């Protein structure tokens, strides 16, 4: 199925928003303005954009420690995200969560998660809930190659499969769990083969090709929505930055710069750009305008974050219980 102009530009814009958000965070982090840990999504934009491009506002996602891309693609507001990263009271979590815990249940974001794989059972539960409530909501569960070795992957996928739940498991295989390469952490090549263990369909897709991701995710999501059960969708991609900001030399301890370079040449945004221009969906200038507009949004988000107040002393004790 061919994508419409609107769809293509929307995917493009989402990727640009993610890219520019992350580049901004990188810069702010380096200047000491953002505290804590920041795991950037640069290079993987096509996965979040392509998958979430198929979701409805009422659908759910669970995200990970590397979650900025997912939540942007699901519709989070940049200024609340940025304010959260700054630890400000106006942030999504009133500054209590930070980068690893951005959530907004009202728009279906059930939270990033600091526990690698921790979101998997939660996603299964959200899917169970929509099934019980009789809605047609779908849940998308993001996690990485490293996390596919966590026991909850196994328990979650099995549970979803026996109950035929409307959930799509999106494994972003960026070939590393921190410093441990996929070859070192599992003998299989395609993580999608693990679906066999649950009698579930499994698909591997080029995670740097946003159109391909969009199309495969669409199939899995429609399948889920139709009540036909879960799918495991593996998207092969790569992170350009170190595991987190502060990982020396973008991971030189465990990977070569040639490898990084090779993947940077497969930039998902550039790739879509070429298609768009070649197919005359957009002009270079039109695309440039998107970047400018998003830069403006980013500026506004940072300003919002910087001008926002920090939480006050008594906030520490609030929100422990409802």
């Amino acid at each position, binding site marked *: 199925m061919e994508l419409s102009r609107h769809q293509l530009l929307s995917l493009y814009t989402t990727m640009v928003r993610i890219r520019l958000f992350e580049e901004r965070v990188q810069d702010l982090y380096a200047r000491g303005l953002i505290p804590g840990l920041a795991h950037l999504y640069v290079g993987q934009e096509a996965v979040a954009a392509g998958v979430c491009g198929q979701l409805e506002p009422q659908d759910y996602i669970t995200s990970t420690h590397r979650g900025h891309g997912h939540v942007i693609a699901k519709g989070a507001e940049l200024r609340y995200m940025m304010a959260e990263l700054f630890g400000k009271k106006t942030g999504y979590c009133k500054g209590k969560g930070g980068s690893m815990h951005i959530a907004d249940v009202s728009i279906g974001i*059930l939270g990033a998660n600091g526990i690698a794989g921790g979101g998997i*059972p*939660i996603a299964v539960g*959200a*899917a169970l*809930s929509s099934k019980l409530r009789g809605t047609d909501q779908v849940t998308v569960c993001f996690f990485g190659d490293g996390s596919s070795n966590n026991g909850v992957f196994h328990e979650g996928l*099995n549970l979803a499969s026996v109950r035929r739940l409307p959930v799509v498991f999106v494994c972003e295989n960026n070939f590393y769990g921190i410093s441990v390469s996929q070859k070192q952490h599992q003998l299989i090549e395609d993580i999608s083969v693990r679906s066999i263990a649950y009698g579930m369909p499994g698909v591997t897709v080029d995670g740097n090709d946003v159109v391909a991701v969009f199309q495969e995710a669409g199939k899995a999501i429609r399948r889920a929505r139709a009540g036909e059960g879960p799918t495991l969708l593996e998207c092969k991609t790569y992170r350009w930055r170190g595991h987190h900001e502060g990982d020396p030399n973008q991971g030189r301890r465990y990977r070569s710069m040639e490898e990084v370079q090779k993947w940077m040449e497969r930039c998902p945004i550039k790739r879509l750009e070429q298609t768009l221009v070649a197919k005359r969906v957009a002009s270079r200038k039109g695309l440039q305008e998107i970047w400018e507009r998003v830069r403006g949004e980013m500026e506004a988000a940072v300003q919002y974050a910087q001008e926002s107040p920090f939480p006050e002393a008594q906030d520490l004790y609030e929100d*422990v219980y409802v």
Partner: protein
Amino acid sequence: MRELTYAQAINEALLQNMERDQRVFLMGEDIGKYGGIFQVTAGLLDRFGPDRVMDTPLSEAGFVGAAVGAAMTGMRPVVEVMFIDFTTVCMDMIVNQMAKIHYMFGGRGKVPMVLRTNIGAGRGAAAQHSQSFHAFFVHIPGLMVVTPSCPYDAKGLLNTAIQEENPVLFVEHKKLYATKGPVPEEFYTIPFGRAEIRRRGRDITIVATHEMVNRALRVAEDFSREGVELEIIDPRTLRPLDQETILDSVRKTGRLIVADEGTVTCGIQAEIAALAAEEAVQYLQAPVLRVGSPDTPVPFSPPLEQMYIPDEEDIRAAVERLRAYL
């Protein structure tokens, strides 16, 4: 009033909540056809069907985590973890997710779910099916911890737990399942954080949980005949804890024994003893004594297991020690 066992009282609370509230559903291992390993969910599958009474695969992290996700999205799951020992295989879901989501997300999202499990030795089930480490959950902010000691409380507290907006660890006691007591047929709730004074007395305060309450009551009868009057307080919920009722009693008697079935070191006993030492030290006329399980894993052999379980003898010995200070 009609009498039910503790297990039946819990069953009735589950049933009534499921009738009143469509959002309530159950998950757990062997809770359906089997009716639960202690028959607490017996009959509920037939009544409510397999969508509301779900037998899960052997995957505690999976289904407890699923309950978290379901609770966040509008349901009211009540899950059963067959023995507290098995909460160790889903501890991340309890400690890092269920307990923290509301805070971590700055109040966006809540996790109104109940995790039912049980403690207690005495069934010859050995070290991995007999533990009582509920104190750990009291150590984790964000959870509520409930410890019913009789059928009446079991039903009333579970009703409250299921209506509660926060995640609740509902800690049952194996030895109590078969004990009977009066339980109203209608729906009623018991507020969290209100201790019950099971017996009034002027000489020694015993704060006791679960079956330790009954053991303490029996001991109190004996001492009463000898003129020593024990005051027995059942906190009913350990988080929130009714500190005032406990402290008022300690201020009155000046003597405190804390009895819980957990191992003593870093247990609930320590928490309540510390509370007294912090808030009522000037009233203490005697050492604060702790009665609980010894610092060993639970042994299998019946004579060892009997020794292991803190019982009337242990309470009596503690009271005897405090008698010197009367």
